[in-house]
């Protein structure tokens, strides 16, 4: 059954929502969904509540109770998206955010019931009000999910960019500590920043350290080889260091051949090799 609240019921509900505006907003502020209502933020929180309540009252009036895409809801989507994003940043999942919204519905229904004379509650009114509040919740869930997806995409992008520090170990010697899972996006970002650094710093040797890479499969190996090849084209030699015993054993069984790329067990071995390539050697200091 579709509950339509046009006509009288719609008008009654709209009247109720407008009349009890302050009470409803007061109870909504307490839920915390609209944010901390302390100090300067109090006015903003009230304004957000007002906007949501206005949308709700338009929805009950027009009778379009079940449609999350209804015009009045469209107008507050950006606002709800912002609130959902704020909650997501605090670590709440879309499911938790939606669950918290139950607390918006209850006080409204309570206020409505308190007003009704004993034994004369109009069922169609309470159903309509309840339906509109449920649809509001659906709208928030939709925006929360979209916001969540956006945040994840954004974080992936950030991770791809920040997880590839290029360290200058010596004049002409660069090191790239590769850490964690190398998906194609991060690998690509790492290669690009390394090649740029080789040009900028006129590096002759670049050390790719894989101490922090938990497993080297064919994709990672291919990435390392391609990076070494590209570096060579730019006039720099690549060394792969930090190959732990379990990784070495696995790579052999997998059949990976790093060809002409120099490898060293530790970063310090690789540095010694690199310094040698740029014509330096490390000797104990003369004392006394």
């Amino acid at each position: 059954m579709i509950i339509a609240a046009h006509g009288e019921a719609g008008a009654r509900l709209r009247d109720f929502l407008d009349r009890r505006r302050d009470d409803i907003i007061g109870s909504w502020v307490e839920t915390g969904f609209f944010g901390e209502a302390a100090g300067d933020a109090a006015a903003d929180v009230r304004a957000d509540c007002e906007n949501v309540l206005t949308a709700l009252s338009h929805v009950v009036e027009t009778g379009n109770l079940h449609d999350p895409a209804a015009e009045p809801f469209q107008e507050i989507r950006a606002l709800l998206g912002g609130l959902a994003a704020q909650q997501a940043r605090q670590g709440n999942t879309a499911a938790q955010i939606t669950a918290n919204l139950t607390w918006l519905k209850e006080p409204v229904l309570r206020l409505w019931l308190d007003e009704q004379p004993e034994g004369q509650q109009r069922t169609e009114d309470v159903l309509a009000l309840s339906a509109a509040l449920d649809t509001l919740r659906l709208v928030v869930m939709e925006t929360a999910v979209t916001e969540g997806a956006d945040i994840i995409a954004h974080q992936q992008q950030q991770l791809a960019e920040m997880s590839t520090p290029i360290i200058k170990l010596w004049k002409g010697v660069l090191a790239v500590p590769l850490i964690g899972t190398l998906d194609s996006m991060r690998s690509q970002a790492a290669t690009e920043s390394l090649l740029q650094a080789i040009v900028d710093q006129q590096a002759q040797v670049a050390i790719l350290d894989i101490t922090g890479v938990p497993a080297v499969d064919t994709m990672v190996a291919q990435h390392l080889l391609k990076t070494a090849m590209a570096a060579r084209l730019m006039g720099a030699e690549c060394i792969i260091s930090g190959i732990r015993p379990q990784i070495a054993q696995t790579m052999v069984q997998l059949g990976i051949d790093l060809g002409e790329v120099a490898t060293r067990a530790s970063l310090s071995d690789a540095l010694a090799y690199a310094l040698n390539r740029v014509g330096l050697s490390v000797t104990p200091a003369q004392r006394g």
Partner: protein
Amino acid sequence: MTTTAASRVVQVSSEMDIVRVRQAAREAAVEAGFSLVEQTKLVTAASELARNTLVHGGGGQVSTELTVQQGRTVIRMVFTDSGPGIADVDQALADGFSTRGGMGLGLGGAKRLVDHFAIETGPDRGTVVTISSAARRGRRR
């Protein structure tokens, strides 16, 4: 006697899911008391096969289960897709054969990294690869 613990299923439809498969393999290997080398072998084989499921098979699913067989903990992983399948399995297993410009080591390499390897496939039949490995030293815990 064989007892099977609840198996874990990961749907594979993006690169992120390959990370999940690796995590599932790693967790199972730790649980089964695998040494670091054994863990790395299983995780690497799982990574290869999951990538094949995604790249060649167009996505699918991977199940991981721990079973105890005669006191030894065995990890079994099944990689299932309903993609184009493989017409010539021997050729696909051969090192260096790739239809996608890869190194062509994944399938054959994965086979070398595990104790048991089975593949069921054929043109337009999809592909099911089943691998299993046990800890050399038996269960530690």
